[in-house]
């Protein structure tokens, strides 16, 4: 009945991998059930910060009951700054895995785009590791030459990079990288900032490509109860009975044609 709980996960390692970007491995029961595209709620140990931070899962190691999260420190005195100071052996309260995750099995036999932008890049790694498809094209966008996780991506598919400053790969965004390299796909998986997802959604719909996008929004409960993190749905949603879906519970991954962004 009460099968889930807030758990004190143990920090295994912590590493800064780019400006403001940290990579942390934690040992947690959440690893057992985790899928690519799901997230965990991470809580601070600071009593003045109540709400969980939803952080996407970057890698899953079921053998060692471990998850990797790669996250951005969003400023001074933030929850994510506190996370970045945790060291091996420290504990961090977590709940998870949460949300639905990417439907990785739908890529079988297809040419796929795995697209990530900014702090939407990390969940694409576990997706790439698990995906079995005809052609695995990983298209990732960064601000500059700090192309974190690039080596891991290169071990898991064909990698195309875009940078805002043009220092590596295509200058511009992930859509520019697709055009410059004349890439084609039958199915798309994407995570990143809303303007990027909006462009990908439009591209997918113009070309009738099946497309899954992972959305984010300010959350409170993280488990589908508070209705803080809703997005607009095309059809009336079964649960809400209005044109809203819960990103934490019904998502964060949606078929692009289900939602309006």
């Amino acid at each position: 009945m009460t099968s889930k709980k807030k758990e004190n996960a143990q920090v295994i390692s912590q590493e800064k991998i780019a400006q403001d970007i940290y990579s942390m491995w934690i040992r947690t029961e959440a690893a057992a059930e985790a899928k690519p595209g799901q997230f965990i709620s991470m809580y601070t140990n600071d009593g003045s910060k109540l709400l969980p931070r939803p952080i996407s899962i970057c890698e899953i190691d079921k053998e060692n009951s471990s998850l990797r999260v790669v996250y951005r420190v969003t400023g001074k005195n933030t929850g994510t700054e506190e996370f970045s100071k945790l060291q091996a052996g420290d504990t961090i309260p977590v709940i998870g895995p949460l949300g639905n995750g990417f439907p990785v099995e739908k890529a079988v036999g297809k040419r796929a785009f795995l697209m990530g932008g900014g702090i939407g890049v990390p969940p694409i790694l576990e997706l790439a590791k698990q995906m079995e498809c005809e052609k695995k094209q990983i298209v990732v966008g960064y601000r500059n030459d700090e192309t974190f996780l690039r080596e891991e991506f290169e071990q898991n598919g064909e990698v195309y990079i875009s940078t805002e400053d043009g220092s590596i790969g295509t200058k511009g965004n992930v859509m520019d990288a697709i055009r410059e390299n004349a890439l084609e796909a039958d199915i798309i998986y994407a995570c990143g900032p809303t303007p990027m997802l909006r462009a990908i959604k439009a591209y997918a719909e113009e070309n009738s490509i099946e497309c899954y996008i992972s959305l984010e929004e300010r959350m409170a409960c993280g488990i589908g109860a508070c209705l803080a993190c809703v997005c607009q749905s095309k059809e009336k949603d079964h649960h809400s009975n209005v044109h809203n879906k819960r990103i934490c519970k019904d998502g964060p991954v949606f078929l692009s044609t289900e939602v309006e962004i």
Partner: protein
Amino acid sequence: MNMKVNIAGVEWKNPVTVASGTFGSGAEFADYVDLNRLGAVTTKGVANIPWTGNPTPRVAETYGGMMNAVGLQNPGIDVFCERDIPFLRQYDTKIIVNVCGKSTEDYCEVVERLAGEDVDMLEINISCPNVKEGGIAFGQDPKAAEAITKAVKKYAKQPVIMKLSPNVTSIAEMAKAVEAGGADAVSLINTITGMKIDINRKSFVLANKTGGVSGPAIHPIAVRMVYEAANAVNVPVIGMGGITTAEDAIEMILVGASAVSVGTANFHDPGVTMKIVDGIEEYMKRQGFQTVDEMVGIVK
């Protein structure tokens, strides 16, 4: 020793329920909480028709608390009755349905519909700061609060709890007004209207500009208001506002709350209500209280 409380004729197995809007109708929390161990489940506000709620962002964290402006998104009373009541009836807990509306007629329609449903109590939300019409319009004027209480009482078959807003000059006056209107109990406090600014974007953090502040930061305000309301009326008071620990809940009971609701703390730990039930029980044992009633309002 037992933890039973009697709230307006309804016996709860313990004095702990959840604050409306923080717990859905319980389904999402059932993996984390044994719903059978709650005195009651107070559901998210439901209106006569589905409401879409406010644009996002709907929540923001504040120091020691949070703000929300969800705007009472709800699926409407029909879906609620078909889905949520049968779900909750599987559990051995009382069902308190929180009712919202934009006009007296809206509230009465929902209350009348619920008269034929298997629910234990009604909580009338006249204190939501996040919707333009209704809600708070009834909750800041004693005459309007009394009038809407009278109106819903005409249709209600279950005991009526009026949920009060802290955004008033005198909470005692508001409590007296709804008591005069026939309220069987009062609950307080709803959230305190606040505002948060993103100084980099130079804009409001919440799409609604303002939102309701909740969480431990507002707990002392809530304790003071529960004390004032409990000393002003004879009907039971359900205390809420920033309760995060058993100690917070006990404070509320000692100043006059017959029961308590746990709200924002559910977001910090979905299993927190179980710890609060256990903590109240431990306190009663330690202090030699045989019943919860023995504790209610002993701090004068």
